[in-house]
């Protein structure tokens, strides 16, 4: 495949309506424990840049707050993402970016599952398998070229 040719030339861009969570008085009360919630996880991944376009996953509606499930006491996080088109070959890369971002940001106690949202990609099972296989993820991250691409995508997600 020609690397300069884009899979999806003209993706639908959505207006960003996410409002930053305001700072409450309780945020400074050390006696109150703030549980990790979907909004916090979404905040971590929404600004990841799409590998193809200079747009964030939030602008492309690839990630969505409603598609993140967090169970803090059981240390589980599930992130479902929606590729822009069903044959998107970047789906695995986007998933990998989300995984790396959460690996570097969430507390280590969490077990994170990344999945393509059901019915939104033609090779859904294949991509899901790839993203949740520890060894394959580790192997992918040893590829310096791939790591560079991921780091570029994550550069905006600070």
């Amino acid at each position, binding site marked *: 495949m020609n690397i300069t040719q884009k899979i999806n030339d003209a993706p639908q861009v959505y207006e960003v309506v996410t409002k930053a969570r305001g*700072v409450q008085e309780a*945020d*400074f009360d*050390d006696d109150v424990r703030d549980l990790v919630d979907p909004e*916090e996880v979404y905040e971590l991944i929404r600004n990841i840049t799409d590998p193809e376009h200079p747009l964030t996953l939030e602008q492309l509606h690839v990630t969505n707050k409603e598609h993140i499930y967090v169970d803090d006491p059981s240390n589980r996080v599930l992130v479902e993402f929606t590729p822009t088109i069903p044959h998107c070959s970047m789906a695995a890369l986007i998933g990998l970016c989300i995984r790396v971002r959460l690996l*570097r940001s969430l507390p280590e*106690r969490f077990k994170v599952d990344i999945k393509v949202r059901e019915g939104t990609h033609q090779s859904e099972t294949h991509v899901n398998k790839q993203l949740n296989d520890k060894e394959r993820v580790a192997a992918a991250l040893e590829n310096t070229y791939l790591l560079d691409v991921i780091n570029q995508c*994550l550069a905006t997600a*600070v």
Partner: protein
Amino acid sequence: MVVQRLVDAYIIGLGDNSDNSELLEKLIECITSGDASLLELVQALGSYLASEEASRRSKGVHVLSEVLKGLPEAAIPTQAISRLVQFFCARLSDATCVPYVLTAINALVRLPAFSNQYSIDVLNALFKEVHVQSFQYSTRSTAYQLLELVMQNHPESAKQMGDDFVLGFAQMLDGEKDPRSLSVAFQLVPKIAALVDIKNNAEDIFDVIFCYFPITFKNRDGDPSAISAESLKAALRSAITCSPYFGEMAVKPLVSKTTATATSAKIDAFETLAAGTCTFSPDVYRKELESLVEQIREDVFMSSEESVVDAALETLEAVYSIIKPESTSSVPGSPMDTSDQIAVANDSSSPLDYVLKEAVFQLTADEIKNSEQIGRILRAAARSSPYNCSVISDAVIPIVIERLDSTEVLTVRRELMDVLNHVLSASCDVDRKAECLEADKINLLNIYRPDSSVPLDKEYSFLHITRLKGITLLVLMPDFLSGDEMAVALQTLARASIERNEDENVNKEATHLLIQLSQSKPEQIQTVVLPMFFSALREKIIAVQRVSHLLNALGAIGVSASKILIPVLNGLVEIVTSGELAPPHCLATVSTIRKMIEAIIVAKDGASICHELISSVVSPLSDWVYQIAKKSTGEHALSLLVLEIARTTVSTFSSLGSEEQQQYLEAMFARYQPVATAVQTEGVESGSSLVQLLPLFSSAICSCWPQTKLPVDDLAGFIGNLSAVAVATSSQIQRDVCFEIIASVVNKTSDSKQRSALTQTALDRADQAAEPCSLAHVLLRNWLARALVKCSDKRGYEMVSWLLEQITSASPHAAAAAEGFSIILGDHDWSVTTQTHGVIKVLSKQRFYATVVPQLTSQFQVGNDAVKTNLLVVLTNTVRHMPKSVLMNGVENVVPLLLSAIRLTEGGLKAASIRTIAMVIIESPDTVQNELVSSIVPLLIASLDQNGTKNSVEVRRTACDALALIPEKYIYPVVQSTRKDVLRALTTARDDRKRLVRQDATKAYNKWLSLGDS
């Protein structure tokens, strides 16, 4: 002989490149004083001037030109000018002499005796003999200067030369490359065009200047004499557009340049075309109109840069503003009203067709694409003139109305309304209602009438917003809506702003539109909109969020138009004082009143309405709170209300003159007699409601000018009483109020002896009233130190020394004394501040820092742990209020203390110390590089620990922020040894119990992780 000697010496000096200014001065002095004549100088130069050797000749001319330049007018005899002009004209053919000859001629042109004929001779010789472009920049610059001087001093000669002058200038400029010369030359072109008829040579001169378009130029950084790219561009633009003769040649190439790919060139071409409309004939634009409109449409539709779109639309407006329909322009001078023009224009093709055809095509298509862009183009074309506005409105509005009637698809309706809004806004811009609007009035009102079938949810909010914009335009349209219709329209807007919508953008937009309308229709807003807001506020059950929304909207409307401000404030005050507002909302309302007043006072003529504000806002609110305090029902958060009203008092009162302040103070003391007495009376119960009103007095007294006389018979006695009451009272409010007043009065006493006496009185009375060294004594000295240090009184430092002594001697109030340093330097709402006319000397903070910090450093070495902790508290309180510039001077001495402060203190003080260290890392990373790995990073890591009480949320967050700075400021080898530890600590911090800390830790972690990658 003397002259000869000087000339010889001068010329030898020229050969050696030595400084000849002294010799030149002597020569000038010699001729000015009459010791020698100009003739003698020429004779002395004879051998040089007539020499066959070029370098000798040029030296001769050099001397002569320098002397002529330096000589006063009277020293050059009139009869000599003729000879000199002849001589210099002849010398212009001598290339080596030209630079000096031009300097000399420039000196002569300034003389009153220099006639027009001489100018003509000189210019003829210049144009004929000198190929200007073969000379250096300085000579070329002198040549342009000569032309400018001639045009300025002898315009007649330029006129007389006519074509020769124009042609000569064109030849002179041809091939110029230096941007500095170009800038001067471009500025000459409009002057020449104004002075001389350039008709015959317009093409020559145009070719010479237009070849530079579009001009780009990058100036060197740090060159103060450099010209800017913008000024060069503007000079070229004014040159190209200075004469109608250029129109024929300019418009076509400019239109083709609008297709340039470079944004700056494109914008430049558009702007030049727009500028040309002032001088060029409309006909030249008419010929290119089709392609120009086509290009503008393409740019508006396709360009991603707003600046290009704006330039394109402005050009469209400018061009249409000069182009009239052919049928009307063919009968110049015949008066025709707009309707006649339209009738005539309808029969033939109109220039607006280029815009209209495409727009009509799009508007009638099944799917409307680019409605926003179509609307913008129509608006730009329509606002060019009332006539064009009528034509466009007539063509577009019926189509849109018909289409809106027939379609129910909400997205299409919204797009159509968008276009309609743009066309209507053009009518508002040209301030003239289009003819067709009257006929379609009912239809228009129906279109914008709120449609109950459209749900008020987020999905349709754009439709609602578009409708609201349309209603605003109808209100703004001149002579369109009747009084009742306007009231209904405003009610619709007000309802949209007041009522809760699914999407708060609708509320925001409605409020924004009301703010816009309040500037042009203040009376209607006052009579229709404000009562609706006030009654919404009076509702019995009303949520906090809604109150805050209503108050914000009212505040913004009030501040935007001066005519509405007082009605809004009066309405709010009435609601608060009437008791109709629920007590929890009173505070929010009073707070809004304060913010509005603060915003209006900083505006330039805000001070003029202070009188009115005091009588209509401050006094009623004070009366109201006084009555509440007397009743002491406990419903209201009295102390917070008083604080807000006191702040409002400060804003208004400090803007009054001293006499007015005095009158107001007297009235205040009389009106609130019990409170005035309570200020100075011991034994007032600390829980008494009257005590809570005391800040009102304190704020008024502290806001006075130094020259305002307080309504007390004996100032020293008053201060003494306050001091005695302060140390004896059990009420914290009363104590603080007394200290605030004492500090303010002492600070504003200009006479140092009197100031010292007042200080002493305060101290003595305090000592008499209670046993020395109570907590109040310590606080009194803190406040006195604030008053005195700010006006750089040396007694202030006596107070500081006393306080430090308390700390080092481990007195029971050492901790309070240390904490009190925040009083000395910190902010306060009204006591000793710039706003309340406190005397604050410029370098007072610097002096404090230079005096106190060395004492702290030395005492830190010898003190025990408790003393050290308190000294660190003092240090942190000092450092956190210091400007960065003061702090960075000698910061290396403070860093070890700050590190100890991080180690020993906790909470806010620890966070402040970490922030200071972070500031040092940002501003001067080298200063702390040695301590970084060994001390700073371990301390920051320790500050991330969430167990125990030492590290509050604030501490942990500042530690994360400080850690995040390190990878940005230091190179990898400096910090690599500690990287692992930091990452480990931040990994733990990523699982902090507080979300804010987790977020900051994640940021820092990712920065450290990528350290060394690049």
